[in-house]
């Protein structure tokens, strides 16, 4: 029984939250890695693009809700998602046209792209706040729980409860579908192969008749889809506030770099690695330890770092990886 209790506490407070958070980071990191691999720069505007896409999705969701349209147990935001993706795609294509294309034509160094993207970040930052404001917005509807703590305790008679929110399951399912579709696209379709070819060797790709502008457009559209889905899932599962999305930039970049920039598989692994590290390092293990080793009553909480230092975990991972394995776990491009 005690082992079961320990397992349930671990699932409830560590595994499930970290898995959902990891999936959200993975989707974000996939977008970063795609842009890095093909357009060859680190897009600092990523977090704020996520906020923009989510804001549009939220507004559409409210519109649908006021019309009385809903998806039953699923959140209405899923219906609004295509609108959000389309708006985000238009926004990033417009940005590319106005900002990045100019530097591409000049064959500017990557650092110039990065700095330009910082400027874009500030503009999108303001744009999102103009559209939806700075406050917390909640837009989740439908069933809230798949497994409810009280019900779980009654069914099992365990002391520990287990909660499984529908948004957590939704996050994992959607992430799996999106990743599957992305890998199929990159590996099996002609366009995907063209993108990979362009990423591997730009000149060679040009020689074999691949239209670079088309590849760039394709990349932005896919990135916009990944960005918006990641943002909406994060907002559904937690809450939407533009500033928090800006802050997500750090763990997302940590995830992409740990996995190896330019490597989609690495981005996914990196997302989960960062999320699990953040949660595991700041979780006090005293309760789990108490179940596993009865009679042992430690004085402290067995917590490595206070929860205030959650963000520091991303920093540490980033530094360690850059020091010892700059290409990341999956041998991406070095930064």
């Amino acid at each position: 029984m005690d082992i079961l209790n320990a397992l349930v506490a671990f699932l409830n407070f560590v595994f499930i939250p970290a898995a959902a958070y990891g999936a959200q980071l993975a989707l974000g990191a996939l977008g970063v890695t795609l842009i890095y691999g093909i357009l060859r720069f680190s897009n600092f505007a990523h977090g704020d693009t996520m906020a923009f896409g989510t804001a549009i999705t939220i507004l559409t969701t409210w519109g649908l809700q006021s019309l009385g349209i809903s998806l039953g147990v699923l959140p209405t935001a899923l219906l609004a998602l295509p609108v959000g993706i389309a708006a985000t795609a238009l926004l990033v294509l417009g940005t590319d046209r106005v900002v990045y294309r100019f530097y591409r034509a000049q064959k500017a160094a990557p650092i110039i792209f990065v700095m330009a993207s910082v400027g874009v970040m500030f503009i999108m930052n303001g744009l999102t706040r103009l559209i939806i404001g700075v406050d917390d917005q909640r837009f989740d509807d439908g069933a809230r729980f798949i497994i409810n703590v009280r019900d779980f305790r009654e069914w099992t008679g365990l002391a520990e409860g287990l909660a499984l929110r529908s948004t957590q399951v939704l996050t994992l399912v959607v992430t799996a579908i999106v990743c599957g579709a992305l890998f199929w696209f990159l590996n099996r379709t002609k366009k995907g192969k063209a993108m990979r070819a362009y990423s591997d060797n730009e000149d060679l790709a040009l020689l074999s008749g691949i239209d670079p502008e088309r590849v760039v457009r394709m990349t932005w559209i896919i990135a916009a889809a990944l960005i918006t889905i990641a943002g909406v899932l994060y907002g559904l599962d937690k809450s939407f506030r533009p500033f928090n999305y800006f802050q997500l930039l750090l763990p997302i970049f940590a995830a992409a770099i740990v996995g190896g920039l330019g490597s989609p598989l690495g981005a996914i692994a990196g997302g989960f690695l960062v999320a699990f590290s953040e949660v595991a390092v700041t979780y006090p293990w005293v309760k789990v330890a108490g179940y596993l080793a009865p009679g042992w009553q430690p004085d402290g909480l067995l917590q490595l770092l206070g929860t205030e230092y959650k963000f520091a975990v991303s920093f540490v991972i980033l530094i360690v990886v850059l020091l010892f394995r700059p290409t990341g776990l999956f041998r991406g491009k070095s930064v």
Partner: protein
Amino acid sequence: MKKLLLATAAGALLAGAASAEEIKLGMSLGFTGPLESMAPGMASGAELAMKEVSDSGLLLDGSTVVPVQGDSTCIDAAAATATVERLITAEGVKGIVGGMCSGEAIASLQNVAVPNGVVMISPSATSPALSTIEDNGLFFRTSPSDARQGEVMADIMIEKGIKNAAVTYTNNDYGKGLADAFAAAFQEKGGTVTVNSAHDDGKADYSAEVAALAAAGGDALVVAGYVDQGGSGVVRAALDTGAFDTFVFPDGMVGQALVDNFGSEIDGSFGQNPAAEGEGREKFLEMAKAAGFDGTSAYSAEAYDAAALMLLSMAAAKSSDPNVWKNSVMDVANEPGEKILPGELAKGLEILNGGGDIDYVGASSIEMVGAGETAGVYREVAIENGELAVIGYR
């Protein structure tokens, strides 16, 4: 040039001393920020008192009182300081109802109000740190120190048989002051605080904070936070993960927003906030209703009293100069004298104009102690069937 300055200064003095004038009273309240849902009720309370005095025409030979609102943001000390600076230097206010939150109140008091010699009476800044602050007699509050609230909260919990509790507080002067005061009082009464940890406002997700609180355990979770901010986030995460069923809510959490957010999910939880019972309060509630706002909104009555105290003190000192009337505040608030309830400000002014003494009771049973703060009556509330129910007063 010198003469001109002297003449203007003399003119200003004369104007201050005699004849009717337009007295501006500032309000530095958090109209945006973590307590934004409480600020409008407080502003309405203060404005109600100002209107009452203006309409009576009895203050300093028929002076009128004009409210000037300023946004203190509650959390941004720099913004609050700028607001108070504007109220004092640009608007020329003779007193300020505010600040709303402790950290912001301390900053604006020390940086602007004290150097400029303007009185601040806060309806809601409750940090124990404000009791001992160097204020040149310019700071008062119509709410009690959190040292007292900590004791009241500990008493209620011990009576309910809660012997150990986890505490989480919003990471600022208010939260830390209250959490520490509570922890000390609770331990003294034989309770155990399993963990006393901070949470930051404005995060998307509090599951990590709640995981830490849950690991430490306890019969109840004390949430010394803000209802429009992290406090509600922590409660949401704790309910979702089933970490705690019973919550204890101090003043920053007790509000309509709490039951709007959680409804019957937090049935069985309880809390307290400063609010007096009695005739004064009943009267204030009636007046608020007539004026079209909800007088039970947290600190609304205290804001009324803050504004009323300022104006009565001016009448007692026969001057609108803050450095003069600051000395009358304690006299007006305490015995001896005729007891003055809300709605009776005109009567109070009349007595004061005639050279008599009053004991302002007001909407929140004002009785100033120590360094100019009220002794404090707390309203004990419980959440029953998704509604805030008043259990009693202590």
